[in-house]
């Protein structure tokens, strides 16, 4: 049973983005060197140091998150460190503490936690590599129902 995200075209996930589909459950640590769209369930940790994480409308994440940018449309329970920007959309539910350089919160979003705006110099973005065959994403625990 593969725990790797698939690259099936999805109307909601931008091209070139790894995808955890809405019927996928991942428990463990996820490291990614490319953008990741989570529309399923993730429990553990999520690290995308130089990339963007999007938690889609069906996504449910119970994890601490580190990313360059994060867009929350679904549900997140956990702390988020978004080096550059955090975007909390109107139907999002986020419970946890946030550390980021910039935050955008749409009306209607639910947020419970603290917001700490970091004022350090934002690192210049590294040149974007050509999309590799697969992202450096791994999940250490078994994933349930990998059908996408």
């Amino acid at each position, binding site marked *: 049973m593969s725990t790797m995200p698939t690259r099936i075209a999805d109307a909601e996930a931008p091209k070139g983005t790894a995808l955890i589909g809405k019927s996928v459950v991942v428990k463990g640590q996820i490291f990614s060197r490319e953008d990741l769209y989570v529309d399923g369930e993730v429990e553990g940790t999520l690290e995308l140091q130089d990339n963007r994480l999007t938690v889609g409308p069906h996504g449910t994440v119970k994890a601490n998150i580190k990313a360059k940018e994060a867009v929350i449309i679904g549900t997140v329970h956990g702390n988020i460190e978004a080096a550059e920007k955090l975007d*909390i959309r109107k139907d999002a539910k986020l419970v946890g503490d946030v550390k980021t350089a910039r*935050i*955008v*919160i*749409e*009306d209607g*979003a*639910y*947020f*419970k*936690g*603290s*917001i*700490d*705006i970091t*004022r350090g110099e934002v690192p210049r973005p590294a040149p974007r590599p050509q999309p590799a065959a697969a992202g450096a994403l791994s999940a250490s625990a078994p994933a349930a129902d990998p059908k996408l």
Partner: protein
Amino acid sequence: MVSRLKAWLFGSGAHPRPEVNAPSVPRPEAAEVPHRYDRQSHGLAEFLSHLRDCEGLAVLDLGGVSQANVTAITTLGHRIHTEDVWRTLDQLFPGPPPEEVEAVAVQRFLSDHFDFPEQSFDGVLVWDLLEFLPSPVLERTIEALHDVLKPGGHLLAFFHAEARPGALPVYSFRITGPASLSLERRGHRQPARLFNNRGIEQLFGQFRSVKFFLARDHLREVVVTR
């Protein structure tokens, strides 16, 4: 003059009050409270003035998250913690305020929103919440506010100035300037209790001071110092 002074001191909304700190916007009539309106807030100005001298303070906002409030507080170099107390209130007490509240409900309310170490915050934005809390919840909330505020910390609260029967509009408060707010109605709710000025002073009896700011609209503002 004496009757006007009494009305101001004891909070009778039926008498005209001195026009202290009058807002620059027209007074919304009680019968036709608009869905959204802007108002000057000298209470907010006072509250924010205590946050200007240094960075890295912690502010608790009980009215739910809004971009405006997050920007206002973080621009001053502070951390903001947001709690949407209204949502819990709607879940626990959806109808008119109950006369009796089970201890478990009080405990859930407190653990949901005030589970912080003592003296965690330098300021708390309470907005117009307190009048809508049923009696045991209100008393425990005041105790919790006292506990989470640092000595010398401030809280900003609003109270309705006009005692009217029935439900009152409930607002989301957005900070739009150093002394200005945008109020957006998020529904109506029956208050559990309305307070005159003396009642407000008694409510915050364990705090060091209560400062009143009167406006021409239907809200009174208080800045309370721990």
